[in-house]
């Protein structure tokens, strides 16, 4: 079992630097999700931890051993790939046994582990099949099984569910979470899907353009995004961000002479340009004339929720309503934000403004 430490890591491909010195500490038995838009460096970081990419500068240690100069094959970690990377010329059984054969694990022990993993993954009947004879979901399970039998000190997942259909993806997500609870092994999971990140992770690492934007528990990252990027990236539909000016006494003056309130005791002085952030679900419908007038352009319903899209000042915003509401496009409704759910960011740097620190 192992903790993983990433210290001041840089990565360049030729002259292009793609990771600009990042630090992450992953505790033993923790499930950490690296999340970010494509090209943010999350997969590259994972591949460096795996030993598939060289480290340009910095240090990675697994279980307190610096592994910069340890080849992938000697790191005793297992990885599940987005494409599954199953060996097409081997049966399911041989796929799972390959890593064990390479490590010269005795035959009966190999068999024991494969039977165990296949049982848990409902693959027992497919051990003699070839990957091409399996469905997408089954292939994904074989990829998982191949990692499991290795009994590695850490599991790495590189977007393992992206190639599955939506329903299967949700199911497998739960299974991975269960697996983690059962195995109690360190897992590092890369995804671009923020929902996957939120549901799976003990902690989330949000990355962008080779930098880490925020590290924290899902709830924390959601409730207190460190900057406007995280605010926009985590949560769907996106947080509404409206430009405004900080007023006295916890008020913010938005465009169109709208004034909203917040509850953070900001050190920042009045008159400062800020971005006022409020999540769609933190806006509520109120009686006519009671709140802010909001012209609805589009109404989308998911069955469970209703999303109203329209313009406030110069920005498009979204309001998320639970349950049923009878709103039609073209109507004007009145909304009011919950002051304690407001987020305030510096307009220029995008950094969250708060004096009280993490709560």
């Amino acid at each position, binding site marked *: 079992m192992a903790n993983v430490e990433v*210290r*001041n*890591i*840089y990565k360049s491909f030729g002259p292009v630097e793609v990771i*600009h*010195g990042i*630090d992450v*500490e992953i*505790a033993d038995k*923790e499930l950490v999700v690296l999340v970010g838009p494509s090209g943010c460096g999350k997969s590259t970081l994972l591949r460096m931890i795996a*030993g*598939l*990419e*060289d*480290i*340009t*500068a*910095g*240090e990675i240690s697994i279980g307190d051993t610096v592994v*910069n*100069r*340890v*080849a*992938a094959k000697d790191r005793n970690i297992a990885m599940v790939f987005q494409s599954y990377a199953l060996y097409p010329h081997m049966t399911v059984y041989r796929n799972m046994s390959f890593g064990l054969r390479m490590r010269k694990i005795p035959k009966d022990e190999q068999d024991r582990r494969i039977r165990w993993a296949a049982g848990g993954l409902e693959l027992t009947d497919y051990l003699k099949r070839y990957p091409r004879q399996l469905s997408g979901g089954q292939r994904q399970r074989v990829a998982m099984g191949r990692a499991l039998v290795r009994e590695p000190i850490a599991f790495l997942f590189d977007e393992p569910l992206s190639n599955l259909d939506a329903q299967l993806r949700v199911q497998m997500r739960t299974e991975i979470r269960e697996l983690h609870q059962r195995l109690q092994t360190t897992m590092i999971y890369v995804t671009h899907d923020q929902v996957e990140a939120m549901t799976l992770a003990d*902690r989330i690492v949000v990355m962008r353009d080779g*930098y*880490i*934007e*925020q*590290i*924290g*528990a899902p709830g*924390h990252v959601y409730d*207190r995004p*460190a*900057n406007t990027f995280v605010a926009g990236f985590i949560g769907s539909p996106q947080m509404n961000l409206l430009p405004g000016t900080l007023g006295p006494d916890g008020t913010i003056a938005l465009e169109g002479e709208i004034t909203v309130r917040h509850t953070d005791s900001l050190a920042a002085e009045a008159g400062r340009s800020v971005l006022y952030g409020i999540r769609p679900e933190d806006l509520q419908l109120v009686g006519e004339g009671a709140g802010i007038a909001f012209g609805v352009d589009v109404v989308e319903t998911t069955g469970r929720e209703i999303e109203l899209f329209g313009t406030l000042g110069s920005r498009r915003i979204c309001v998320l309503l639970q349950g049923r509401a009878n709103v039609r496009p073209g109507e004007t409704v009145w909304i009011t934000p919950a002051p304690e759910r407001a987020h305030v960011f510096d307009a220029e*740097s*995008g*950094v969250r403004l708060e004096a009280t620190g*993490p709560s």
Partner: protein
Amino acid sequence: MAELDTAPHHTLERSKAAGRRSGVLSVDRRRMIGWAVVMPLIGGLIVFAVYPFIYLIFLSFSDSNLGTLFRGWVGVENYTDAIGQSKFTASLFRSAIFALMTTLVSVVLGVVVALLLDRAVKGRQILRTLILLPLMTPPITVAVMWQLLLMPKGGWLNSFLMDMALFSQPVSFLGSPTMAFPFVCLADVWQWTPFIALMTYAALQTLPEDIYEAAKLDGASGLAMFWSITLPMLGPALLAIAVLKLVIAFKVFDLVFVLTGGGPGQATTVSSFYIYRVAIQQFDIGAAAAQTLMFAVVVGLVTIPFTTAHDIAEKRLS
């Protein structure tokens, strides 16, 4: 573990120099083993390409014959002699014409065959196998086949033309100064068109179907579709194929050797054959070396415009 937010990168202190370490790891090590694995290939290239090339350079400045090499240094005499020999310069020109002509004809014919192959609903398999055969035939045997077809006494073409009453006397096609060269070209086209057809056919299969569907909806008809979509999209592939054919055509030797022996006169003496004769019949290896190098330059000069065109076409499409 405490939930600590990391500082956003704007404020991140960059201490790259402190963290920088050279990491000789998997990728570098793989590349090192890779070099070891590539060495035999490089060795082979040295033996087959680099060494001959350097050797030829030395030979070309020497007086050498098959029996005794390097009997003395003669400076650029071999080169000036070669340029002075109109038979040699004519052979260079003839090689270039041969390469360009056979490439042009076999590419055009190859595209036609590829289109026929692409549209053939039934028997495509058989068609492909049949077409594969000329390509598989040893060039020496191709030459023999065409020799049989073209010979004045009993050749099929003569009998056919006389049966049709077009000729009264048998004609020695390969003995005629005007007809020998085109017929050598024809035999070459016969051998290589299938190759071009197969490559073109494969390139056709990579063209995205939806573009054709879009063009169909735009009202393009068969012929317009070919000119405005198939041909432009096939452009880079065709140019690449043409380059390959050019290179192969410059290597032609066996056909000439059997069909005409370079004759009549010099009518079909392409450079590789001319050089071969200088070496084998006149034993003048020094002169042959100089001529070989000059020939290689001509091959490059003729091929480069096509590779350039290919690069441009490829860039335009991507």
